[in-house]
């Protein structure tokens, strides 16, 4: 019996689910976003800006399949987000803007509108919101023009509502949602 007690304690400890006890919603959102932002910057700088703008070997185009071109950074981000959704992940994210080329990427919910306005100053914005009866922790991160490709494409696009973006400008925001409870 004396031996059994510590064994039971060890067993219970092993059976308990692993928890990141010190991680709150904000930390998880920040961690996920850091991966997204890093991948997105690498793609924009090392693939798009290098091959299209510097070395001029291949174009990037919205219609990449038809024009045999590179996928735009915003599309690459969206395809990733769609793949995550198709896998049934619990969180979701999208790239939105107050000046979107694709009108579907306009701010839609009250928190998106407030958040996209807030991140123009350069800092992330966090808030909870209820959508379709479910509660979400919503984080909005500023999305800045990191390469010439970003601003030239948006300034030149016929459907772009704004055409005076400059390097380093906040052009929009990554909106990331974690379901709560």
């Amino acid at each position, binding site marked *: 019996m004396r031996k059994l007690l510590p064994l039971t304690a060890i067993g219970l400890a092993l059976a308990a689910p692993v928890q990141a006890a010190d991680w709150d919603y904000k930390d998880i959102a920040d961690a996920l976003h850091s991966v997204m932002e890093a991948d997105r910057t690498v793609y924009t700088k090392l693939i798009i800006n290098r091959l299209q703008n510097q070395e001029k070997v291949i174009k990037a185009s*919205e*219609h990449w*399949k038809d024009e045999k071109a590179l996928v735009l950074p915003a599309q690459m981000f969206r395809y990733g987000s*769609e793949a995550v959704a198709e896998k049934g992940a619990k969180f*979701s994210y999208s790239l939105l803007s107050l000046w979107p080329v694709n*009108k579907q990427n306009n701010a*839609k*919910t009250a928190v998106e509108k407030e958040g996209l306005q807030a991140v123009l100053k350069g800092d992330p914005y966090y808030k909870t919101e209820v959508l*379709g009866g479910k509660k979400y922790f919503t984080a909005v991160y500023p999305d800045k023009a990191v390469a010439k490709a970003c601003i030239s494409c948006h300034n030149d696009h*016929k459907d772009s509502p704004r055409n005076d973006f400059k390097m380093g400008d906040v052009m929009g925001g990554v909106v990331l949602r974690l379901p709560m409870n």
Partner: protein
Amino acid sequence: MKRLAPYRIWLVWLAISGLLAAYFAYAVQTPGRQSAFMPGPVTHAHHQIELKCVACHAEPFKGRAGIQEACLNCHAKELKAMDDSHPISKFTDPRNADTLAKLDARQCVTCHTEHKTEITHPMGVTLPDDFCVRCHSDVAKDRPSHKGMAFNSCATGGCHNFHDNRALYEDFLIQHGKGDKLTAIPRLPERNLREFMISMEYLDGKPVDAASMNGREELHPVPRLVAEWEHTAHAKSGVNCSACHQAKDASGKLAWIRNPDHTVCASCHQEEVNGFLSGLHGMRLKQGMTPMQPDMAQLPMKDGAAHAKLTCMSCHSSHRFDTRQAAVEACLTCHDDSHAKAYKASPHFRLWHEEISGRGAKGSGVSCATCHLPRIEFTTPEDERRILVQHNQNDNLRPNEKMVRSVCLNCHGLQFSLDALADSALVSRNFQGMPDKHVDSIRMALEAERRGKRRKTSDGAAED
């Protein structure tokens, strides 16, 4: 016995109930006998497999999730390939919860419910005609040209589809909108399976003939069949008798197959067979049912062909494998609707006749297969590209603008193609004459482009 007499009526009732229960228990488990359980007729798309309930209803008691799974089992691949404009992921995003409340497009059956003939519209849509407006009522804000348009004109005007807009999106219209009725060199792409098989080293490509083969005399080869085979692309590429007629049996021993079926063809023509099994010609085989027969079809078919069984060999005839025969005469053996009947008087057939009689250039003729079993570029599982024949005859058909890219633009301009396909009377006459309809989308797209340019030059001034 007398003692049971007062209960006779109950015994009869019990016997009849027992028999009925036994019949229904048998029927529900037996494909082909399930009609008693059908709540109503199914659409043209699925009627061939309607008596196999589990084809769509999956396992019993799996409910909606099972149906959705069954839809995607057959249709997910094509939706991906067509760059679906309304993918499920768009509706699962919480930010679109309000859109989802208007239209739950996560489930195929929200828009395409079976067994409801009385409310089924073209493309199997069972929603009222105003479904676009539920989410896009403010379209005129970004597209002033759309102001005042009828709520049901989005798809019927030849401008938009819910899923497939590959030939209809704005920049595509702008890029191809200035084309003439005919392109400079109207030609089809050429197939290249032989080159692909050789480059992948699946075949050495060295021709074989009967004389060079170590004949299996004990099988008594029929000289006529051997002679037919000797003229085929099979013989010219080194595909001998045993390539199709010999396979390993369960014990791993090589055995002779007298009548090879589509699974044998698939060993070299996998994607072609996949296409065949996905379309109206092969979908019964895919479900493990007996082959499709013309007398099961809803389209008019020739009486004489009523009981023909549809397999690869029905169109390709074993040993001869004449693709020209398969491209026209095989179709007309069965099909008897107005479009099929008008074909031989059409300008398309004239070009086909020129080509097969040796006067027209290779790829200049237009057969039934040119449009309905088109040559498309395909990425193989090895990640190589090859041109193959899409054997799913429905892949580019409903709605028919799906045909524009894979077929029409090889020879025709975009405006002419859209107009011709929108004119159902012209389609019925098999394109004898000029289109009476006019699709306005190209004009509107070019106008939007000009507006965009004006806006840019005026440096951010408000849109008109």
